[in-house]
């Protein structure tokens, strides 16, 4: 047997050329298109993943916006409730204040009326007391209405402050002595003597009759006065009673 060397060489050439041709026209393009498709697929997958991410983000944003809206609504609701509550409370407070004010007004009116009544009653009581005292004095001897009060007058003078007494002691000063009835000479003398004793020097004494005193002696000067009469006592009593009434409640 003998090999055909020309065939050998030509076949070698043919096979090598075929390898190159197939690599050029078949295998490389197919491999390239496969790789390209793989890339495209991976790119598509990436795109899909990106799109999914975006969608998720959008959904999250929407969720957030909804939550925000919910929150705002809840806040608004809460605020409205709060406002309403506040307004109601304010209204209540105003109403309460109004009621209180009215109540106070009524109370004041009531108080004023009561006061007025009290005053009237007291005035009546004072008049009644005066009348009773007058009636009682009528029964006493007439001298008692003056003489019994001389000592009181002297005491009243002594209770005056020293400066006032000094002014009284001034010789030029005229003293006004109020009496319930015209004095007898003995009574006048007794009064003058008592005053002279009390002040230490003779003085000019004017006498005026004021039957409202009921009984007692009152001394008046330009600067001072000594109330020493049944009327003044009654008036003082009345004032004290009124004060006590006012202080009691």
């Amino acid at each position, binding site marked *: 047997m003998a090999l055909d060397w020309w065939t050998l060489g030509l076949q070698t050439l043919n096979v090598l050329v*075929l390898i190159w041709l197939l*690599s050029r026209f078949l295998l490389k393009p197919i*491999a390239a298109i496969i790789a390209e498709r793989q890339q495209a697929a991976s790119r598509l997958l990436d795109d899909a993943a990106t799109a999914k991410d975006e969608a998720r983000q959008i959904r999250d944003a929407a969720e957030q916006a909804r939550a925000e809206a919910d929150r705002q609504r809840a806040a608004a609701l809460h605020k409205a409730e709060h406002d309403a509550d506040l307004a109601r409370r304010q209204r209540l407070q105003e109403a309460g204040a109004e009621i209180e004010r009215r109540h106070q007004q009524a109370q004041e009116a009531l108080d004023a009326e009561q006061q007025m009544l009290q005053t009237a009653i007291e005035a009546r009581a004072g008049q009644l007391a005066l009348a009773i005292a007058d009636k009682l004095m009528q029964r006493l001897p007439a001298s008692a209405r003056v003489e019994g009060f001389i000592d009181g007058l002297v005491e009243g003078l002594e209770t005056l402050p020293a400066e006032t007494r000094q002014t009284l002691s001034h010789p030029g000063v005229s003293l006004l002595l109020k009496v319930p009835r015209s004095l007898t000479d003995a009574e006048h003398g007794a009064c003058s003597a008592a005053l002279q004793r009390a002040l230490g020097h003779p003085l000019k004494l004017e006498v005026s009759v004021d039957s409202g005193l009921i009984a007692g002696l009152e001394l008046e000067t330009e600067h001072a006065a000594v109330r020493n009469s049944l009327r003044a006592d009654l008036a003082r009593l009345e004032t004290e009673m009124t004060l006590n009434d006012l202080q009691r409640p």
Partner: protein
Amino acid sequence: MNESPLLTPTLFHAGPVPISGAVVVTWLLVAVITTASWALTRHLSLRPGKAQCVLELFVETLDNQIRDTMQVQPEPYRALIGTLFLYILAANWSSLVPGIEPPTARLETDIVLAMIVLLASIGYGVATRGVRGYLRTFAEPSWVMIPLNLVEQLTRTFSLIVRLFGNVMSGVFVLGITLSLAGLLVPIPFMALDLLTGAIQAYIFSVLAMVFLGAAVEAHPTPKTLENKEP
């Protein structure tokens, strides 16, 4: 029957060069395969048609086979292995066309294919490990194995040649005998068997080429057996 299957008859002379039938058939096959692949890959798109699907399936299967058998990336070996498979398949099946004898039934073509595999294994081995590294693989596991490894290189190449040649040649031989005995319809089962044998031999040749290349490239070759491989 007087024609020896071992001799390659010269078809004609191109100048001083004798052109045999195997060379002419190979030229035809090269032209047909190239034209077909050019036509099929001219309009590739990301949305594949049927033809493109088939081609992509073929290439992906090829890549997977290379990856499984050689444990390497298929890029550098795809062209060699794919061309070997496609060419042997086309050559074996070319016997279906009346009057054409498959080139692989001639000893020269098989020698060429096996020598290309041998040289490629040497070339890829040297490219991967360097000259010294490649030569050192012959001394594995010990220097005693050097002659045995050298002989193995030759014998496996020789067995590659004879396996392909014997299978295809015997098919052609049996077909010729059958045709000379009974003309009509009787050769059809033999032709079908030839188709099967041709496809299987193309696959086996490619897988063995992968195993040889892988053994030359790998540090510690773990040659995959032929089980679990799709033809």
